[in-house]
């Protein structure tokens, strides 16, 4: 299992635990945090856990197009990991407090950064995985050429 896959999966497990814990906290009326935590734990489960695990496992299991281009692969994979997790952490730290901090320039900026990072992480992952998804005929032709 490549190192980046291990990082994706372990980070996913941490979000999984935190997500289900927050889902429990959101159900306790005394905290009154249900509506604030709802988008946080849903994104922890869907993006933090499931999507991140899929990304890690597909980087590991999907057939590689260029075995000799490991540096490019490493860069895109780590970029996807770094951007996704920075984006998610910024989101989880500041999104629940947006209604309180409305108009705070620094927090709004961090939310925009979080959003851009998450989308860029997806772009980096797609750039890494897309060349590996080719029909048999095309792969055989390319392998014949090289």
């Amino acid at each position, binding site marked *: 299992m490549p190192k980046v896959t291990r990082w994706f999966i372990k980070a996913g497990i941490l979000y999984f635990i935190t997500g289900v814990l927050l889902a429990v906290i959101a159900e306790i009326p005394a905290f009154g945090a249900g509506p604030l935590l709802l988008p946080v734990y849903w994104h922890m489960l*869907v993006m933090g856990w*499931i*999507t991140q695990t*899929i990304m890690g496992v*597909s980087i590991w*299991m999907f*057939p590689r197009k260029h075995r000799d281009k490991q540096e490019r692969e490493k860069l895109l994979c780590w970029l996807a990991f770094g951007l996704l997790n920075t984006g998610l952490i910024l*989101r989880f730290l500041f*999104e629940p407090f*947006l209604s309180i901090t409305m108009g705070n320039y620094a*927090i*709004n900026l961090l*939310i*925009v950064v*979080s*959003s*851009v990072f*998450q*989308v860029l992480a*997806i*772009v980096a992952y*797609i750039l890494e*995985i*897309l060349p590996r*998804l*080719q*029909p*048999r005929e095309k*792969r055989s032709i390319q392998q014949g050429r090289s």
Partner: protein
Amino acid sequence: MMPKPSLWMIWLSLLYLLVSATAGGVILVHKAVDIHPVIWSFLPIHYELAIWGWLVQFVMGTAYWMFPKYVNGKRRGSVAMAWGMVFVFNMGLSILVLSMLYRMEPLYIIAGRCLLVISVITFSLLMWRRVVSYRELTER
């Protein structure tokens, strides 16, 4: 090697992931900085595409590729059924998302969801006999 129905399902799931993440990103920014009230109407599309378009479709495509294959005959069962599964799934999802985006009659939403059900049943029929141990597969 990855079969074409799997390739198409995974290609489309990546496209839906990108669209869903972008829609989600715009909604998140809109929470901090008011952009336009119409952005809230992206919310159901954001999660339908994330769950059905990305997660479910990616898992279906990968399972169709990776699960144990038949030793004799067509290795993954009926190819026509597999293409039917891909087509009906994406037709259903497109109808569902467009009907939500343009606030069409609930009938369209039901039709979209029914197509998703048909595709999931087709997937289950294709996969049922492939959920076996290697020994069972060689003994057949």
